[in-house]
C-alpha cells in the first residue's frame, strides 16, 4: 500500500513539474542572493556565517516544500484517500516522500553553496550524514504540521508559526554538528549529537504516526 501511495506521489509530482522547478528556483535565488551580497568580500564569510546562511536557506526551502504536501491538496481529494487507504499508510508515505524530496533539495543547496560561496568543511563525509539525518527530522516533524495547518485559515502563515518551535530542537543539534564538521574535529566528538538527532527523529516520527489518524478524521 505504501508503495502504491509513494508511486502516486511521484507520478503527481512529475506530472506538474512547475512545483518542483519552482522550489529549485527558490533555493537557487536564495543562494544567489547570498552570493551577490558577499560577492566582492568572499573572505568575510566566516565558517559560522556560512553555516547560518546555509541552514536558514535550507529551513525556508524545506518549510515551503513540505507545506505543500497537504495545503496544496484539492478539496475533497482527501475524502477519496480516506475511502481507499488507512491514515497510517498515508502519513508514512508522505513522510518518506517528503524525506526524499528534502534530501534532494538539501544536497542541491549544499552543492550550490560550495560552488557559489566557498567550502569551509573539513569533514564532508560527516556533513553528508548530517544532511541525511537533518532531512529526515525536517520531513518527520513538518509533515504532520502541514496536515494541521491545512485545516486552518491562513495556512501558510500558520505553517511557519507552528513549525519553528518544533524544528528548532533539530536545528540546534544540526548547527552544533555543522560547527564540528567545519572545525574538522574527530568524528567521535559528534557521535553523541548524531545519536541525539536520530533519537529526536524517531520521537517525532512516532508521534506523527500516532497522531495523524486524529487530524485526518473529519
Amino acid at each position, binding site marked *: 500500500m505504501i508503495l502504491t501511495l509513494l508511486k502516486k506521489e511521484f507520478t503527481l509530482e512529475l506530472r506538474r513539474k512547475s512545483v518542483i522547478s519552482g522550489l529549485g528556483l527558490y533555493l537557487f535565488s536564495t543562494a544567489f542572493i547570498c552570493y551577490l551580497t558577499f560577492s566582492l568580500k568572499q573572505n568575510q564569510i566566516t565558517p559560522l556565517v556560512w553555516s547560518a546562511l546555509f541552514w536558514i536557506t535550507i529551513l525556508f526551502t524545506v518549510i515551503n516544500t513540505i507545506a505543500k504536501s497537504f495545503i496544496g491538496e484539492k478539496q475533497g481529494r482527501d475524502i477519496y484517500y480516506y475511502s481507499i487507504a488507512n491514515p497510517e499508510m498515508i502519513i508514512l508515505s508522505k513522510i518518506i516522500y517528503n524525506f526524499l524530496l528534502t534530501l534532494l533539495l538539501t544536497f542541491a543547496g549544499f552543492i550550490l553553496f560550495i560552488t557559489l560561496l566557498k567550502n569551509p568543511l573539513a569533514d564532508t563525509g560527516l556533513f553528508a550524514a548530517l544532511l541525511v539525518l537533518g532531512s529526515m527530522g525536517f520531513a518527520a516533524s513538518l509533515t504532520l504540521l502541514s496536515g*494541521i495547518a491545512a485545516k486552518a*485559515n*491562513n495556512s501558510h502563515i500558520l505553517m511557519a*508559526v507552528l513549525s519553528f518551535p518544533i524544528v528548532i530542537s533539530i536545528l540546534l543539534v544540526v548547527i552544533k554538528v555543522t560547527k564540528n564538521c567545519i572545525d574538522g574535529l574527530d568524528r567521535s566528538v559528534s557521535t553523541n549529537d548524531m545519536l*541525539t538527532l536520530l533519537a*529526536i527523529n524517531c520521537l*517525532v516520527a512516532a*508521534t506523527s504516526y500516532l497522531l495523524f489518524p486524529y487530524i485526518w478524521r473529519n
Partner: protein
Amino acid sequence: MKTWLKITTVILLTYTIVAGLLFDVPRLNIVNETIRALYFHVPMWFGMVVLFCVSTVYAVQYLRNPSIQKDINSVEFANTGLMLGMLGIFTGMVWANYTWGSPWHGDPKQNGAAISLLVYLAYFVLRGSIENEEQRARLSAVYNIFAFAAMIPLIFIIPRMTSSMHPGSGGNPGFNMYDLDSKMRMVFYPAVAGWILLGIWIATLRIRVRKIDEKLIELENE
C-alpha cells in the same frame, strides 16, 4: 479544588515567602543571597512542567473520548502553565542579572525555556485561527501532544549536553551540593508543593469562568 487544599496552598506560600526571605542560607561566593531564588524560580518552573503535563494528558483524553470539558481543561492548564513559565523566566532573569552579570545571557537553558514558551504561544495562535469548534479542539489537542513531545529534548536533554552555566547542568552542581545541612530542603519542598497547588487553583478557577461563559451564551441563544 477542595477547601482544605486551598488553605494548605495559602499556608505553604506564606511560609515560603516568610521563610524563604528570612531563614539562613549557605554563604557562597558569587551566588550569595541570590540562592533564595531556589524557593521561587525553581518551583515555578516545576509548576509549569506539571501544568503542561496535565494539559497534555487532557489532550490525550480528548482524542480518545472527545468532550468540550476536556478541551477547556486542556487549554486552561496550558494557559496557567504559560503564566508560570513567564514568571519562571522573569525570576530567572533577575537571578542571572546578579550572578551572571546580565539578565539574558544566551545560556542554552534560557534559550530552551524561551522556545518552549514560543511553542505554547503558537498553540494559542493555532486555536485562534480555526473557526469550527470541534475541529479546533481536535487539531489543537494534536498540536499540544506533538509540541510536548518536541519540547522534551529541548528543555530536558539538549541543555544537559551542551556547556551551560545554569546550576544543575553542564557539570555545575545543583543546590543539593551547597545544602549541606538540608536546611534549604525544609523550605524548598513546601515551596514546590505550594507553587504547583497555586497553579492548579488558578487553572480550576479559569475553567469555572469558562463554564459560566458557555452557560451564558447558551442562555442568550434560548
